[in-house]
């Protein structure tokens, strides 16, 4: 075994010997797992993945800075470098340990991700996240290592504080860049400033956005900027450590000091100056979720109810099954669609025809219910004086309701938890006394719940329990 390999193995073991290392790892994974589990009730991919694949990897800048700085702060280097170990060997081993920790973190996200992909597959956004995350981890280890090397003191507070400051800036720049670029101001000074964040750079390079509407049309200089940031930081850290410092001292000339200062500035500012800001390309769809355009003509409302049930008191919302409850995935859901017609209930309604369509879900209804020459009508009282005004200036306080039994089967889900499907209702009908038939279209939605909370909780518990077990075993062994 070479010295580097031996150092790597020993340093890796040493990393988890910290009194609270296993416990800390377990707590981080437990919090993430809890968040993953909670997110199965709403929408999983955006909030969880942003946290797990974006924010936590950014925090590795603190881990890297601390791990690089602490052996000098606590004088462990005195023991290491009076053994036959060269500083270059130790630096390589230390970097390898950091990269191993990042790989371990990435692997620790696997169980939750497998639960998701087993139900959904790999949509574009997850695919991008899976690339974004290792990019961030690589960049954060490089920058964090440089910070850790630049500070020689008996305390790790200075490098950790610096890393924490950068972390905050990097996080803030992500939404800032999305807002600025969506407003068409991506090429302004503020837009360039946001490119200081490696998370933004990698996002632009991969060509995706979370909420922003546009991405850069070209990415060549963004990739080059990334390379400058990552490899520049690593090379500068190595050069400073091996050529400008002793074991615990700065050994610089005036020329070296200026070289370091200029190199740090060049590495930091290169992306902000040279990375692309031509935000001209629309952001690709994050997944196969259909677009929702919710519109209700005035007074023409609709709601899904259980068979035979009356319209709910707080009717009606653009999400038709708000009171009915979530539809079940890949199985028929029987309901009745109540369509409120903006007409005087005192007048007869005839020749009612309705067409139902949706995206991602199957809708079926008895043709007899969709085409009724004289539909049996109930009356719906508009709440809170919200009835429509007819052309004759008569304000309706109630309207006739047509009841249509429907079967809904949501088939193509794109996220765990809440999936919202468009459901369009087009109707024509005649009202006694009116010469022209009436027509309206509603663009509403229904939601369906893909239930995976139990699976996610189970998957998210495996590694935290392992970490707590390891912490307990070490405590017992060494107490």
């Amino acid at each position, binding site marked *: 075994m070479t*010295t580097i390999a*031996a150092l790597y193995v020993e340093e890796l073991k040493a990393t988890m010997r*910290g009194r609270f290392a296993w416990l800390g790892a377990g707590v981080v994974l437990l919090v993430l797992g809890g968040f993953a589990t909670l997110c199965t009730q709403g929408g999983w991919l955006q909030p969880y993945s942003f946290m797990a694949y974006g924010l936590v990897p950014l925090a590795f800048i603190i881990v890297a800075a601390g791990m690089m700085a602490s052996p000098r702060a606590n004088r462990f280097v*005195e023991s290491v470098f*009076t053994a*036959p170990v060269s500083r270059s060997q130790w630096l390589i081993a230390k970097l390898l340990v950091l990269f191993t920790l990042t790989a371990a973190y990435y692997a620790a996200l696997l169980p939750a991700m497998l639960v998701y992909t087993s139900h959904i597959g790999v949509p574009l956004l997850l695919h991008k996240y899976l690339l974004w995350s290792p990019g961030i981890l690589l960049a954060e280890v490089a920058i964090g290592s440089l910070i850790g090397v630049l500070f020689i003191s008996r305390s790790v507070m200075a490098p950790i504080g610096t890393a924490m400051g950068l972390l905050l800036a990097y996080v803030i720049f992500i939404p800032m860049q999305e807002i600025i670029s969506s407003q068409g101001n991506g090429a302004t000074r503020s837009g360039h400033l946001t490119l200081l964040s490696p998370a933004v750079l990698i996002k632009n390079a991969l060509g995706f956005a979370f909420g922003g509407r546009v991405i850069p049309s070209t990415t060549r200089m963004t990739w080059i900027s990334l390379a400058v940031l990552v490899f520049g930081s690593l090379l500068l850290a190595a050069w400073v450590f091996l050529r400008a410092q002793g074991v615990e001292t700065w050994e610089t000339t005036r020329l070296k000091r200026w070289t370091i200062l200029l190199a740090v500035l060049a590495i930091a500012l290169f992306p902000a100056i040279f990375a692309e800001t031509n935000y001209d390309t629309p952001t690709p769809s994050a997944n196969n979720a259909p677009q929702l355009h919710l519109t209700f003509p005035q007074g023409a409302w609709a709601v899904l109810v259980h068979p035979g049930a009356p319209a709910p008191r707080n009717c009606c919302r653009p999400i038709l099954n708000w009171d009915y409850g979530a539809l079940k995935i890949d199985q028929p859901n029987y309901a009745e669609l109540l369509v409120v017609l903006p007409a005087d209930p005192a007048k007869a309604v005839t020749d009612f025809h309705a067409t139902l369509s949706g995206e991602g879900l199957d809708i079926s209804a008895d043709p007899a219910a969709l085409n009724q020459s004289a539909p049996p009508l109930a009356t719906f009282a508009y709440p809170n004086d919200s009835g429509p005004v007819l052309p004759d200036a008569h304000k309706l306080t109630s309207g006739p309701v047509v009841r249509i039994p429907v079967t809904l089967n949501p088939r193509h889900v794109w996220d765990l938890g809440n999936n919202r499907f468009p459901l369009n209702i087009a109707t024509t009908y005649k009202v006694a006394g009116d010469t022209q038939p009436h027509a309206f279209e509603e663009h509403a939605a229904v939601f369906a719940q893909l239930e995976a909370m139990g699976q996610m909780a189970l998957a998210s518990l495996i590694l935290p329990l392992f970490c707590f077990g390891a912490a307990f075993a070490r405590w017992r062994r*060494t107490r």
Partner: protein
Amino acid sequence: MSTPSSMNGATNIAVNTSSEFAVEMDALTRRFGSFTAVDRITLRIPRGQLYGFLGLNGAGKTTTIRMLTTLLPPTSGTAKLWGHNVAEDPLAVRRLIGLVSDETSESQSGWTAREYLLYFARTRHIASPRDHVEKLLNDVGLEPAFRGKLIGTYSTGMKRRVEIARALMGSPKVLFLDEPTRGLDLPAKREMWNLLRRLAIDENVTTFLSSHDSHEIRSLCNEISVIAKGRIVYTGATRDLGDDLDSFEENLITLLTQSSAAAR
């Protein structure tokens, strides 16, 4: 502390036999900005000697040791250990030395003594590292019951023993000891002295001992150097500074006071 185990399990050390001295310093100098911590020290220490290095706080003792142990590059001058230049061939020097400084094991208070020593045994590629570590811990007298407990829970003396065990790892040819018995109780201190004597006699280990303890220096070292304000102000036989401890200390104080006055 028992007689040290023979240096079995240790890696081979490339020894430069062209030099008869264990330690050679020629005009060795270290500056920190405009402050000269060590000023043109020239000194030669034969192999197998227990050599004392005395001085007041801030005199330059630790800086000298740090240069000799490759932890600090000299500003000018040269230092060689067994003929290997510390600045040009630090790895060769590190294969030859062991260092006990101010409680560096404290830095790894979350490790056990075994883990701490195994780290160094494995990075030195010592065969049967576990056996070697147990043997070293036996040599320095650390109770087996404590070897698997965290160093942070040890007494000062126990931590010192762990440090000494680390310094002895790999059969060093030159031991640098900075206050090695600080924190040790009297029996442990005397065991430590016996250990150092045996290392010098049986293994021809050179010991460079920096200490404030005049009694310790007189007990162990036949030759000493005294450093003040970064300069060597005395090199010679220990007994030449006094036949008993009182006269030794009085002469030493006089020497240091005069040197400080001269430096002003």
